[in-house]
């Protein structure tokens, strides 16, 4: 892993020239926006010359139209900059962490993986994502991407008007890896809200959770506070969640500062990390040459590629190769 100083020098050497290049293109496009906005003032200024009074309505319309037209005409160029940011900066970041990994900016974790994980049982009808990273770290194959799943519902109010509402089910990074132990059952580790809020009463609610398998009480107190474990096999759940893995999961959760969920199904581990921000995107109205932004993206990549180490997935001392 790179030290902060090593990353800084990598940034200066490999990324800065690209970023500066992209930045000058971005600035040109942004300047265009302002130029067109000025043109947009013209129809509003005509009445000023004729009648001596400003018509704000026409100024607003003119500017909005001009800017809209500008974006329409330059849509391709803007997207090109954003795409270049991904292919030239983000891809390089991924390669710098592990050269064997592949980055694909437009693909994402398959909906098959998402549903198979059983982490989110809520129905969805919108599924999208990007920034897929795939590859093999040591002996463990991994894949992760950004994901956004939503449920759109339409209803009619009392006046008969159709109302559309969109509920976000998951937004964040979704990670799948080959697990180092063989197992046949299903074990799901969900963030615990009931127990941390209501104590033992919460445990009772967890037991009554009809949509899940049996509740598995783990002996690690901190782990129990943070998570609720459901499984169809009490022994296998403990075989998967060894005492050391529980500690490792807790440490990983600390690092993400997010309410993570994990599931162990079909000899794979699925990890969902809800995040608020949209990662790995190039800014348009602010500068691209920002070390902190790139450093932030890099930290997320390191964190996710590091899951293999964090959860000790390369230790293959059991029958699974």
């Amino acid at each position: 892993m790179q030290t902060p100083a090593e990353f800084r020098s990598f940034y200066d050497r490999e990324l800065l020239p690209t970023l500066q290049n992209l930045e000058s293109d971005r600035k040109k496009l942004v300047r265009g926006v302002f130029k067109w906005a000025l043109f947009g003032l013209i129809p509003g200024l005509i009445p000023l010359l004729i009648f001596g009074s400003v018509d704000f309505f026409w100024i607003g319309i003119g500017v909005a139209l001009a800017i809209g037209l500008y974006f329409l005409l330059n849509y391709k160029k803007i997207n090109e900059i954003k795409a270049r940011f991904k292919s030239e900066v983000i891809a390089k970041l991924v390669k710098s962490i592990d050269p064997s990994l592949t980055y694909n900016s437009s693909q994402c974790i398959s909906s098959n993986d998402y549903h198979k994980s059983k982490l989110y049982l809520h129905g969805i009808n919108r599924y999208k994502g990007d920034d897929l990273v795939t590859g093999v770290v040591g002996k463990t194959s991994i894949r992760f991407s950004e994901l956004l799943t939503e449920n759109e519902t339409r209803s009619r109010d009392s006046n008969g008007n159709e109302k559309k509402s969109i509920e976000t089910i998951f937004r964040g990074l979704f990670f799948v890896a080959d697990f180092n132990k063989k197992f046949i059952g299903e074990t799901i580790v969900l963030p615990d809200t009931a127990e941390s809020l209501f104590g033992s009463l919460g445990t009772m609610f967890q037991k009554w959770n009809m949509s899940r398998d049996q509740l598995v009480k783990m002996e690690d107190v901190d782990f129990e506070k943070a998570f609720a474990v459901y499984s169809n096999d009490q022994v296998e759940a403990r075989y998967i969640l060894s005492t050391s893995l529980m500690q490792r999961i807790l440490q990983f959760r600390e690092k993400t500062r997010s309410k993570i969920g994990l599931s162990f199904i079909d000899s794979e581990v699925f990890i969902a990390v809800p995040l608020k921000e949209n990662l790995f995107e190039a800014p348009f109205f602010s500068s691209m040459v920002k070390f902190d932004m790139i450093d932030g993206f890099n930290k997320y990549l390191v964190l996710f590629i590091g899951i293999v180490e964090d959860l000790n997935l390369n230790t293959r001392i059991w029958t699974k190769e």
Partner: protein
Amino acid sequence: MAPMYIAIGGVVLLIIIVIGIYNNLVGARNQVENAFGSIDVMLKKRYDLIPNLVESVKAYMKHEKDTLTSITELRAKAISGNLSTEERIDVENKLSGMMRNVMVAVESYPELKADSQFTMLQRSWNEAEEQISAARRAYNAAVTSYNNACEKFPSSIFASMFGHKRKAVFVIPEVERQNISAKALFGN
């Protein structure tokens, strides 16, 4: 009339609560037995591995011949089925300890370490060990929830009435606790 209905209602409610508590106690006790059974299943899996493991290391490990013989003997004793629980635990612990020594001794036999059949057996062994530990943890969790039911009010009253007694959790011997660090054996 009304007070009578209230009284009947009260009695019915009480009966339902008692049935609920009783069933909960029985359920918890059965879970303990079930969990105990699963330890047995895992232990049996480990016994099955021993003859193959002994066979594959015998040719290489000339110096450990005595150890291997006593491992075979202990296994025979363990599966004979006429041991008390204490004796069985004792035999189990001895067996685990000896196998651990064998696994450590493997380090000084490079040809053995390179033997693919042996490495597979070794992996199976680690798996069995980890599964036994998981089964024991499951047993302890079942015992804890049973003991809670026996001792927490109000079910404690009925527990003593129906003859439910507190059960002891599995105490894992000190040597066994170290054994999970199988990683150390293989230098990761």
